[in-house]
């Protein structure tokens, strides 16, 4: 009697203080949790920042160029000294969902915790469980390479107060499960807005213009709303799925920073998730009013027509319709009519290689024209393709091209 009471007390004690602590929430014995974590890490494209090209997976060191300076992505392998091996699960959850570092310091929002916060604690733990399984790499990374005053993390308290709303994703009532899944993926792990939403001067999202496009790293991340002219209104759900899955579709091809996203993340996503993303994006209301089309008699249009015939029509076709999965269409293309012509000018100057995936390995590329066409000629042909075949967009000026030409010259190779 006495003995069994003792056992009971002991068991209770173990339960309260022993077993509960001995078994961490992220469990390396749990296949399902690890597999979930791997898929979430893929959706969240952790590797996009935390793996250097040619480096060991998740060992960090990739420099992110922000408008404020350089930040190096830290080592998130389970190495105890230089990675996150010594972190508790709570530390990890706090960092991922709340932007709070191991020592309580604020993280720079280059880490997309304002998006990841939409995930649940269990999802964060699953990611942790997966990261615990990757090879620990001893690799010291000094993340904070920002100049004064941005290197003072205390400033981030104010940033968070202004721009960070912690909290899990709440499904919208009245929307389908598919729509809600898409909304969660876009707003949460997919962190599409990190690039596709314009930032204000403090680097915070202009939430009133969510997913209407933003500039970063010398590229314009295009408008993802349902806008038919500059967004995805002209794309079918299948077009979006095919694009995210293969990097190519009947309209366009992924290049620039988006090619990394396709290779590391979206090409590995489940078709059902890509469909959900597409359904959600297509539901976002159009916001942009079309500018007046540039008249055919405009000198740029006349010169552009001739340059187009000589330099562009062989691939993009005289009709501007391009070749599906090969050469992007210009007619009706949202990328061409985008309010911000950064990508257009950049691609004409520098050329671009589209992304290769297992499903679409060809990776056709456009050659550079910087040595062949002057600023004025590029301005003319870009203005022409933005305003021909029913396209409508603001003209591009010679100085727009000149500005970008010098920006590219300064860009690190």
């Amino acid at each position, binding site marked *: 009697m006495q003995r069994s009471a003792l056992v009971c007390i002991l068991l209770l004690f173990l339960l309260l203080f022993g077993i509960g602590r001995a078994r961490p929430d992220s469990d390396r014995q749990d296949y399902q949790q690890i597999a979930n974590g791997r898929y979430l890490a893929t959706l969240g494209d952790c590797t996009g920042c935390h793996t250097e090209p040619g480096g060991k997976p998740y060992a960090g060191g990739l420099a992110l160029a922000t408008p404020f300076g350089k930040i190096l992505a830290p080592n998130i392998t389970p190495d105890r000294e230089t990675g996150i091996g010594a972190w508790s699960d709570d530390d990890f959850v706090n960092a991922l969902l709340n932007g709070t570092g191991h020592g309580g310091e604020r993280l720079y929002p280059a880490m997309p915790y304002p998006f990841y916060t939409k995930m649940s604690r269990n999802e964060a733990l699953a990611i942790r469980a997966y990261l615990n399984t990757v090879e620990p790499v001893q690799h010291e990374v000094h993340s904070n390479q920002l100049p004064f005053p941005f290197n003072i993390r205390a400033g981030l308290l104010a940033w968070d107060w202004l721009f960070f709303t912690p909290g899990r994703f709440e499904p919208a009532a009245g929307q389908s499960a598919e729509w809600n899944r898409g909304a969660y993926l876009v707003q949460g792990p997919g962190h599409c807005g990190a690039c596709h939403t314009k930032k204000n001067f403090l680097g915070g999202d202009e939430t009133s213009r969510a997913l209407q496009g933003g500039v970063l790293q010398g590229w314009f991340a295009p408008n993802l709303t349902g806008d038919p002219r500059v967004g995805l209104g002209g794309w079918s759900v299948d077009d979006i799925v095919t694009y995210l899955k293969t990097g190519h579709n009947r309209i366009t091809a992924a290049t620039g920073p988006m090619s990394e996203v396709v290779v590391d993340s979206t090409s590995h996503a489940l078709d059902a998730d890509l469909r959900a993303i597409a359904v959600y994006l297509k539901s976002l209301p159009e916001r942009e009013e079309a500018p007046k089309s540039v008249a055919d008699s405009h000198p740029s249009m006349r010169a552009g027509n001739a340059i187009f015939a000589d*330099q562009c029509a*062989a691939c993009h076709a005289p009709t501007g319709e391009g*070749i599906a*999965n090969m050469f992007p269409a210009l007619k009706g293309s949202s990328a061409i009519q985008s309010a911000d012509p950064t990508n257009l000018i950049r691609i004409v100057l520098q050329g671009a290689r589209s992304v290769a995936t297992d499903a679409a*390995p*060809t*990776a*056709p*590329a456009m*050659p550079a024209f910087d040595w062949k066409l002057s600023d004025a000629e590029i301005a003319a042909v870009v203005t022409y393709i933005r305003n021909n075949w029913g396209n409508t967009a603001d003209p591009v000026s010679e100085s727009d091209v000149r500005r970008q030409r010098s920006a590219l010259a300064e860009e690190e190779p």
Partner: protein
Amino acid sequence: MTRKLPPVDAVIVGLGWTGSILAEALTRAGLNVVAIERGPWRDTSTDFPTTYAQDELRYRIRHELFLRPAQETMTFRNKTSETALPIRHWGSFMPPNGVGGGGVHWNAETWRFLPSDFRLKTHLTERYGNSILPPDMTIQDWGITFDELEPYYDRFEYLCGTSGKAGNLKGAKQANGNPWEGPRSRDYPNPPQRQPYGPTLFAEAAKEMGYSPFPQPSGNLSQAYTNPLGVTLGPCTYCGFCEWFGCGNYSKASPQTTILPVLLRRTNFEARTLCEVLRIDLDGSGKRARGVTYADSSGEMFEQPAELVLLCAFQLFNVHLLLLSGIGKPYDPNTGEGIIGKNYSYQVTSSVDAYFDQKNFNPFVASGSIGMCIDEFNGDNFDHSKLGFVGGGYMGAVQTNGRPLETVRVPKGTPQWGAAWKQAAAKYYLSSYQAVTHGSCYSYRDAYCDLDPIYTDSFGRKLMRITFDFHQNELKMSEYLTDRLAEIVQKMGPHHIDKKPRTGPYTITDYQTTHTCGGAIMGTDPTTSALNRYLQSWDVSNLFVMGATAFPQNAGYNPTGTVGALAFWSADTIVNRYLKDPGPLVRS
């Protein structure tokens, strides 16, 4: 000092069409494959982009895509009584260089040989008796039949996206296709290219004369196409910069546009460019290849051991490497014994130039292989018993280009420079037309390759020596074919024609075609062939030799279709039979 590298499963010498086809098949089968290529890496948008791909001076005149004779050349003579001299500027043929090889700069004329071509000697002697063959002609059967090769022709055509029209589907003749072709299992993957005015007019004239004109099968695509490997090509834009040029529009079938994008994603594939293979290394028995020795661009020497050596270089260089490596017995024209270097052959082309008054052919609307052809005078499709020759070729109006430096025709008798020449050139740029014949070239006892006794290359290796001349049989054939062609052209309504049959002696300085053949021929008997029917060396069973090197003689077609088909045939045999039980696939 030579550095010995870790062994690989297979080493490929030369990364052109055949090297790429084999690398794809073997890496898919799980082998670790290293391809060693003498020339540079080449890719469409970086090396022949649309922005300057049509630079005729750079590519056509200055040979940008081709091997430099200073790097490697060969010596040439017409007859054994002459002293051969080194070729210091390419003329008659253009040895390719770099990744993609000849697949980068070809016109993409993608033919199948006739069924009788593969059993040529048997066929001709059965039909005409032994006496029809000149005593010094050394033609042989291939040891493989058309029907055996048909599935592999099909593989190559579907890889390339060949545009054409079937003439014989499983034995059933098809209207508007080539009625003389061997039975094919299915139609071409893409419809024919659109025909410009010249070929259209030629086809009308040919039809009127009772012939059956058909569109030339083209590796320049009539429409966008995704091949079985998942690689997509764009449609041809008819710019007319094909042969001598790389296609900037991804619309000419080449290793770059059909295979390499997939190969590059395979972690068990590696290409080493700007590395020259110096020899194939044999073990002590001389019956097994250990691998290859090569030099990189710094002159560093490496030995790459491999279980399997695949010789996939251009025809001439395959023969050269075999001779340098001491594989097989070198051919001796005096005794007729030996095999390596034997049966070197070529192609016998000719043309009819026609000048019109009121016609505009827009010659710049062109593609390397758009055209209308007839096959009535190819192979043994016509009775040779009273003609005094054997062989034949296709003929037709093939509008390959209207390039301003190269394609300026003036009637015979026009001054070669000055105001009169300029006037005639301007007058006839649009209103002249050239039709061509593409004839067979059979093999002879005195046409062969061996090592030159005098000249060496920069590595101190003996250069290869080519001894070759046209024979009366071929010249008579060319005359006959050119006459038949002239009859059709005459019907097109010119006011003047110039017949240009091939005449002897063979000249090494005038461009004709790059269809050099033979030197390590395939067959059924190790005393008369270097390779068995699977392109495996009789002497060294872990060595396979690809390309037109294996042709016992050349047929009246462009060779690449057959080169591609043989590569697929050999690759299939290696994967399905050889790898399971390495050793000779045919007992000698």
